């Protein structure tokens, strides 16, 4: 199937967004306390699809909620019965506006693990029924390093519709998946109000990508990073790197690819709810066993686990890194530890020292 490219202007795009919001269940970055989080919106005024990357939360919670209800149950002397399961079955199509490329890529990376031995149908269904419009990324943030990872800006199929700035106020819309293609085509067929023209000229878009790629402060050669990391399991650099860490767990909670969770029951009287909620491998109690033994009691070990999982284990298992280079962790870290620096530093230390 071939995908199409359209060109429009800011007013046209806004009109289109308005139309989408009025028609579909739409999510977009909404500002609160200076931070943007993806929330359901009822008008374009409430949100900002071009929110600054440094102040925007990951889109992950729309697919893997911070807390999802597994089931609601009742336990009485008559026995235990399940009252409800599955938090939101999500049958209707929904739209998310203003998703950063890296963020969308995170969802793609996560699909692998969700399709693995246990199939998380909730996650997959949510992705299946969601059309993602990208944000107009045109300048890299301080901590961005997405281009350094195995990641192709021009052919990214993690998002459904790429929204790219062109010259002279032109905005390009490019469908990247079938879902995006169908959705956008249908929209454009129904209305002609969006100043949209089909185009085959992708040169301006390409130019934009090149400019974007050049704006990165952080760059590294990612090709052999996995190998280098794998050899440095015993590197003392982990201890050094983790020294500044205050174990606050923020990095994991805002990461677009972290997917550790815990199960908790909240029972009041006879009814209980079982939740699946985020957790972090940086948490000292994450690996605490019931018998009292903790295989990762020291901070650097938890640190190593997180780095190795992102750059070695996941890659070995699924062929991709569990990091998309969004830099959210470095931004949110109270002491500005950047995983980019850490991985680079570790990879550059001598093996076996």
């Amino acid at each position, binding site marked *: 199937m071939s995908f199409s490219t359209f060109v429009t202007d800011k007013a046209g795009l806004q009109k289109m967004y308005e139309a989408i919001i009025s028609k579909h269940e739409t999510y977009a970055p909404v500002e609160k306390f200076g931070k943007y989080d993806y929330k359901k919106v009822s008008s374009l005024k409430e949100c900002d699809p071009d929110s600054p990357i440094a102040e925007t939360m990951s889109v992950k919670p729309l697919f893997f909620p911070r807390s999802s209800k597994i089931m*609601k149950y009742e336990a009485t002397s008559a026995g235990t019965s399940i009252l409800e399961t599955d938090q939101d079955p999500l049958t209707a199509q929904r739209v998310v506006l203003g998703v950063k490329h890296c963020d969308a890529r995170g969802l793609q990376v996560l699909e692998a693990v969700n399709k693995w031995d246990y199939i998380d149908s909730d996650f997959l269904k949510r992705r299946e029924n969601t059309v993602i419009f990208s944000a107009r990324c045109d300048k890299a943030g301080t901590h961005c390093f997405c281009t350094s990872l195995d990641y192709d800006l021009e052919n990214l199929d993690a998002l459904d519709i790429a929204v790219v700035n062109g010259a002279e106020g032109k905005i390009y819309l490019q469908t990247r998946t079938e879902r995006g293609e169908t959705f956008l085509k249908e929209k454009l067929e129904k209305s002609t109000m969006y100043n949209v023209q089909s185009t085959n000229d992708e040169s301006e878009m390409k130019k934009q990508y090149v400019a974007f790629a050049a704006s990165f402060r952080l760059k590294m050669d990612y090709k052999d990073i996995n190998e280098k990391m794998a050899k440095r399991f015993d590197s003392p650099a982990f201890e050094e790197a983790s020294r500044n860490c205050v174990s606050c767990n923020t990095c994991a909670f805002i990461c677009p690819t972290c997917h550790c969770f815990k199960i908790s029951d909240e029972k*009041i009287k006879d*009814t209980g709810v079982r939740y699946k909620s985020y957790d972090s491998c940086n948490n000292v109690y994450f690996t605490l066993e019931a018998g009292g033994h903790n295989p990762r009691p020291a901070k650097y070990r938890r640190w190593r686990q997180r780095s190795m999982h992102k750059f070695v284990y996941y890659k070995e298992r699924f062929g991709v890194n569990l990091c998309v280079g969004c830099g959210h962790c470095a931004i949110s870290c109270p002491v500005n530890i950047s995983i980019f620096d850490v991985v680079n530093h570790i990879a550059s230390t001598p093996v076996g020292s």
Partner: protein
Amino acid sequence: MEEVKDKIVSIEKPELLAPPDWKPVIVGILCNWCSYAGSDLTGTSRTQYPPNIRIIRVPCSSRVDPWFIIKALQTTADGVLISGCHPGDCHYISGNYYARRRFLVTRELLKMVGFHEHRVQFSWVSAAEGAKFAQVVKKVTEDVVKLGPLHLYKKENFNK
């Protein structure tokens, strides 16, 4: 039984109407030596009070962790009453003085985050003040009935 009038709204969330059969639930945490004994005296003297309070016995008001109040508000309670010995009468010498400090701070904090101040109330009731206990319960119940059901930060599976 406190009569519930037909239109009661939750004071913190005026958009929510109380169901017609709504009855407030008040969690009462009482110290063993004064207030619990006082509440027993209310019983022995057959003084009547509204039946909405559910009493929990603790040894001393100083045993009451503000956490209990938060927990009660999150789950079952529309109102909370905490009662201990009068200052100077603590069976454990000084427990209620420590409790008093915590209560003031907790109350002010809850007020700030949007709970009406009558949601959480405190009293000193001695073992001899059976009549006072009945009055206190009556006042707290009447107050909470006026405030309507509590809908703030309730647990999802809480439905009473």
